[in-house]
């Protein structure tokens, strides 16, 4: 398989004080791995890869890392490019989850859930890529930091916590971006994705609620639904900050700043974000 050296991703980034959005449990887990010098790349994780052309991130050759991805949000195309980034990361992540050794320890119910998640996100990724055509983002699988990824894949708890974060960022991104879209057909497609992402998000919280949440109400808990009965919502800049906070993308994958032009006033004006620290 096309495995790269794990050093490339500068794993210390994940412990940085500015990257606090991810559950502290996983940060400390990664730290412990590093401190103990046992950053085993979890051979079991790769055991499902049956031939040399495939990796845990999916079939085919994994491309070289890309750098400098930037977003111009002054058009529906620009907003769909942001969607494409999320869908690529989700698809790659769930593909890796289903290929991981940890996955075999999941219950049958959970395995069904994660295969469904993977399948849906792969469809979403390919749909958005097709829709964008020449304006699609490059394949970012080569920019995924395998050390960080494998740290997440080491346990059921960290897999589900990371999945919750991904899905809630996905829901929040779509809920925040809809107002900037200028074409009703594109808004409808975004809506078709959004409720599916919300179904995932609810199912994941139902399987394993964040600490302190009631297991029977976590699917739409008071931490993610505001007093007006409205779901999570993030502006694009915050979406990219959440993505960066996972550490899954190597430094430099996104341009700095990643948004070269925000939505125009005609597209809409920003609204306050609503998103918990640990969705």
């Amino acid at each position, binding site marked *: 398989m096309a495995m790269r050296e794990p050093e490339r991703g500068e794993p210390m980034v994940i412990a940085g004080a500015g990257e606090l959005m991810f559950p502290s449990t996983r940060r400390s887990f990664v730290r412990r791995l590093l401190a103990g010098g046992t950053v085993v790349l979890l051979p079991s994780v790769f055991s499902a890869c049956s031939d040399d052309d495939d990796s845990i991130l999916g079939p085919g050759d994994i491309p070289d890392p*890309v*750098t*400098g991805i930037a977003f111009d949000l*002054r*058009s*529906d195309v*620009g907003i769909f*490019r942001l969607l494409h980034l999320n869908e690529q990361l989700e698809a790659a992540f769930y593909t890796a989850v289903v290929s991981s050794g940890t996955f075999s320890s999941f219950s049958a119910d959970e395995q069904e*859930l994660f295969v469904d998640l*993977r399948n849906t996100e*792969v*469809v*979403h*990724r*390919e*749909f958005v*890529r097709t829709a964008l*055509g*020449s*304006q699609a*983002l*490059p394949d970012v699988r080569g920019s995924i930091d395998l050390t960080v990824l494998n740290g997440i894949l080491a346990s059921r708890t960290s897999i589900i916590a990371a999945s919750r974060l991904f899905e809630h960022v996905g*829901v929040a991104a779509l*809920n*925040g971006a809809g*107002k900037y*879209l*200028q*074409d*009703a*057909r594109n*808004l*409808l497609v975004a*809506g*078709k994705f*959004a*409720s*599916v992402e*919300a*179904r*995932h998000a*609810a*199912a994941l919280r*139902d399987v394993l609620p964040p600490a302190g949440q*009631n*297991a*029977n*109400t976590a*699917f*739409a*808990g008071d931490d993610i*639904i505001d007093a*007006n*009965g*409205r779901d*999570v919502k993030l502006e694009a800049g915050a979406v990219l900050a959440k993505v960066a906070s996972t550490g899954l993308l190597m430094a430099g994958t996104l*341009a700095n700043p990643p948004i070269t032009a925000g939505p125009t*006033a*005609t597209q809409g*004006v920003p609204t306050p974000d609503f998103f918990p620290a640990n969705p």
Partner: protein
Amino acid sequence: MDNSQQPILDAIDPEITGRLVSRRDALRRGASAGTRLAAAGLALASVPAALAALSREAFAQTPADVLDVLKFAFILENLENEFYRAVLGTSAVAAQNNAFAPVRALIPDAAKQALQQIQKHEQQHVDFLKAVIPQFGGAVVTITANDFDFTGGNGSGTGPFARATTELDFLLLATQAFEDTGVRAYKGQAGRLLINGNDAADVALESALRIHSVEARHAAKIRRIRRQRNPSDTTLRFSGYVRGGGAAAAGAGNITNPPAEVVAALNLIYGGATPESNTQHVVFNGTSAVTIDAAALGGLGVIDAGDRTAAVTQAFDEPLTKDEVISIVKGFIKDDPARGLP
């Protein structure tokens, strides 16, 4: 490597928009947009921008559309809210509480907590819409539990969904149907809230999208509860997805002898002009509208061949038109055209 995108293309092709988007008469709306904006009490500064947008895009909506959507949503949220209150025994109308007493005794505590959480959100949605409708110049009608017939009998009290008052699995099926209808209704109306350059409409749109995803969470939770009660029915996914379309997508296999009217209702709820089984989706890339068939996508190799058909339907939730939603909910609402109740 520079991946910044190419110059933006935002030209509108009127031929395509006219052909592919089923919209109401743009002339009528264009003629009345100014007065409606003024009537809605919106900032005058937003008027030129809104009119500019209207002139640029033939299918643009007006504040009158926004108000119509909000009023429609208000009826649906009241229907849901009063349904849950009756189920939970917290309705202001004793007869509604009494009707559901037999099934209420059968609801496990875990499911009851979930239903209470859902009801709380429906009440919040009702209250939110009640506050927002006047901001668009609309009057809020008073709606009570007396306006509804949760048996689907249009006031007879003996409609095809009456078994929801005595059978837990039937109740949960009805609950799922309400929630999935809500998801599809909001999705179908979102485009009518899209007014470029109108900040008030943007707020309404964003709130509708955020309510829409909450309804999807509710539907997913109910589907998970139903699957746990009926593990062999794999139509009900642990992911909470809707697979396929029509009545088969409801996962009603554990309902013995469902009334034909209920099957017909489920066919509407998961069917329609764009059924849940649809795989054809239209995107507009700035220069042209393109229909993409998800069933024909490449790059799906990681998905087991036997799962691909299901995958390409579950990955997209589909809209219902307003008329389709009305045909679904009509039997649950006692007619009162004067108050806008269908």
